[in-house]
Every structure is written in structure tokens, then in C-alpha cells.
């Protein structure tokens, strides 16, 4: 039974992941990714990580991928940018080699872990205890990180007054955020690249 479930979930996970990276339409990609994450959550349940499984669904599938969807909708990618996977033999060879090496690494797994699975670790209590005792400093640090991320996002997408006043992306961005040190770089891609090169050589 457990075996069947594992192969089902694992196969689903691989299958949906492949679809995710294969599809041309980003929206489809997102949907496949949600499915892949759902399969992962199932695997987590099999591994007695109930809280993590819940978080996987809620945070990943629920929140993060929704964000992806929003952005994809907002950007309205043009057709030529919706192209799918570009097979590059070099990269394929690299990926295959990597996979092989990874497999060897797993095969060589020494006595670090026991072959016998632990029973009865599903309760969130020990997880919470670890989080709030040994890992309390990283835990707090993560909260700061999230705060920083929020601020970063706000700053990154804050439009300067000039930009708000004028219309469209053709106006120079007068230092709307910390993203572009060379404020005032024109938004025409080629020219922007040129300015960027100049900046790069100056620094």
C-alpha cells in the first residue's frame, strides 16, 4: 500500500514537474507546478511531516504560486516570449552528469542515517519546541528577513514622482528604487544596456 502510494505520488511529482518546465504557457506551468507541489505534500504526509505538508500546500501552492500567477498575468507576456524549453545539448549533458553524480552520492550514503524509519514523529510539538528553543535566533532572523523582503518589494516597485507624472515606460526612472544605481538610464533596452556597460566599466 505504502509502496503504491509512493510510486503514485513520486511519479506524479516527476510528471508534473516535467510538464512545468516543458509548457510554453506560463499559466499552465504554474498550474502544473501546483499539482507537483500537491504530490510533494502527499509524500510529506507519508513521511509523517504533517505540519510541513500543510505548509507546503498553504504557503507554496496557496501563496507563492498565486503570486507567480498574478505576476504572469500582470506582465502579459508576448507570444514570442512564451517559448518553451530550449534544448541545449551541453546543458543536457551537464544535467545528466549531475544526476549521475547525485545518484552515486545517494548510493554511497554511509552510516549517517539508519535504514529503519522512525515511528511516531508526526506531532508538531517537538517541531515547535525545536523552533522556539534551539532555533530561536534563526527563527527571529527569518522574521527580519521577511520584513526586509517586504520593504524591498515596496521600494523596488515604487515609482518616482516623475514616472508617475508621465505615462509609460519611455520616461527615465529618476532613481525610483535602489535597483538601478545608474538612475536616469533610459528605458530603451539597447540604450539601457549601453549605460549599464558604462557603469560596469566604471565600477
Amino acid at each position: 500500500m505504502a509502496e503504491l502510494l509512493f510510486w503514485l505520488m513520486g511519479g506524479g511529482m516527476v510528471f508534473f514537474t516535467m510538464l512545468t518546465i516543458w509548457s510554453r504557457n506560463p499559466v499552465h506551468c504554474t498550474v502544473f507546478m501546483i499539482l507537483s507541489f500537491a504530490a510533494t505534500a502527499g509524500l510529506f504526509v507519508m513521511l509523517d511531516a504533517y505540519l510541513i505538508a500543510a505548509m507546503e500546500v498553504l504557503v507554496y501552492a496557496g501563496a507563492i504560486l498565486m503570486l507567480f500567477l498574478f505576476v504572469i498575468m500582470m506582465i502579459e507576456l508576448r507570444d514570442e516570449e512564451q517559448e518553451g524549453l530550449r534544448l541545449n545539448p551541453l546543458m543536457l549533458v551537464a544535467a545528466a552528469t549531475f544526476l549521475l553524480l547525485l545518484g552515486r552520492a545517494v548510493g554511497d550514503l554511509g552510516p549517517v542515517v539508519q535504514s529503519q524509519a522512525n515511528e511516531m514523529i508526526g506531532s508538531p510539538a517537538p517541531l515547535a519546541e525545536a523552533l522556539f528553543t534551539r532555533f530561536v535566533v534563526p527563527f527571529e532572523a527569518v522574521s527580519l528577513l521577511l520584513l526586509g523582503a517586504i520593504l524591498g518589494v515596496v521600494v523596488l516597485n515604487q515609482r518616482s514622482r516623475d514616472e508617475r507624472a508621465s505615462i509609460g515606460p519611455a520616461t527615465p526612472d529618476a532613481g525610483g528604487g535602489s535597483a538601478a544605481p545608474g538612475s536616469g538610464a533610459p528605458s530603451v533596452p539597447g540604450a539601457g544596456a549601453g549605460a549599464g556597460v558604462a557603469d560596469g566599466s566604471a565600477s
Partner: protein
Amino acid sequence: MIPLEHYLYLSGVVFTLGLCGVMMRRNIIMMLMGIEIMLNAANLALVAFNKYMPPGPDGTVPMDGQVFVFFTIAIAAAEVAVALAIAVALFRRLDTVNVDDVANLRW
């Protein structure tokens, strides 16, 4: 009982798939998705390790693997938020999300 290796092989395959996604797609948003897949594969490995972890001296199993996953998810959330914000900013500024068009960071 499913051995640990199975989970790890699965994790490795999915990780490599994510990697392929990062390498072979030019759309920055799709690259981000690849990264998320890789993170997720790693999460799977961590949780599996936690399941097969030897108990401590007092008989309880440390929950380090799951704690790490917890952190990974939190950090992934933050990362995605910022990265997508950058993508949006990039699109607004340069009117593209194709990374090959954004190769200014070179010598």
C-alpha cells in the same frame, strides 16, 4: 517500508528537472519556478532524512530536518517576493523578462 534511497533518488530527479528548467528557459519567471522546484526537491530530501534520522541519546528524534524545511519555505517566500518584484521592475524598465536581453552585468 520505502527505503530512504527512494526518496533521495526522487528528490535528485526532481532537483535535476528544476535545474534544467533554470538552465533551459529564458523567461525569468520560468527560471524562478525552476528554482522553486529545486528548493522543493531539497525539502523532500530534508524531510526524508528527518524520518530516517537516528534518535538522540534520550530516545527522541531531533526535528532538525523539518525545521530546515520550515526555514526553507519561509525564505523561499521572501525570495520569490523579491525576485518577482525585480522581474516586474525589469519588465517595466526594459520591457522584457528574457534574461538573455538583460546581460548588462558583464565585464
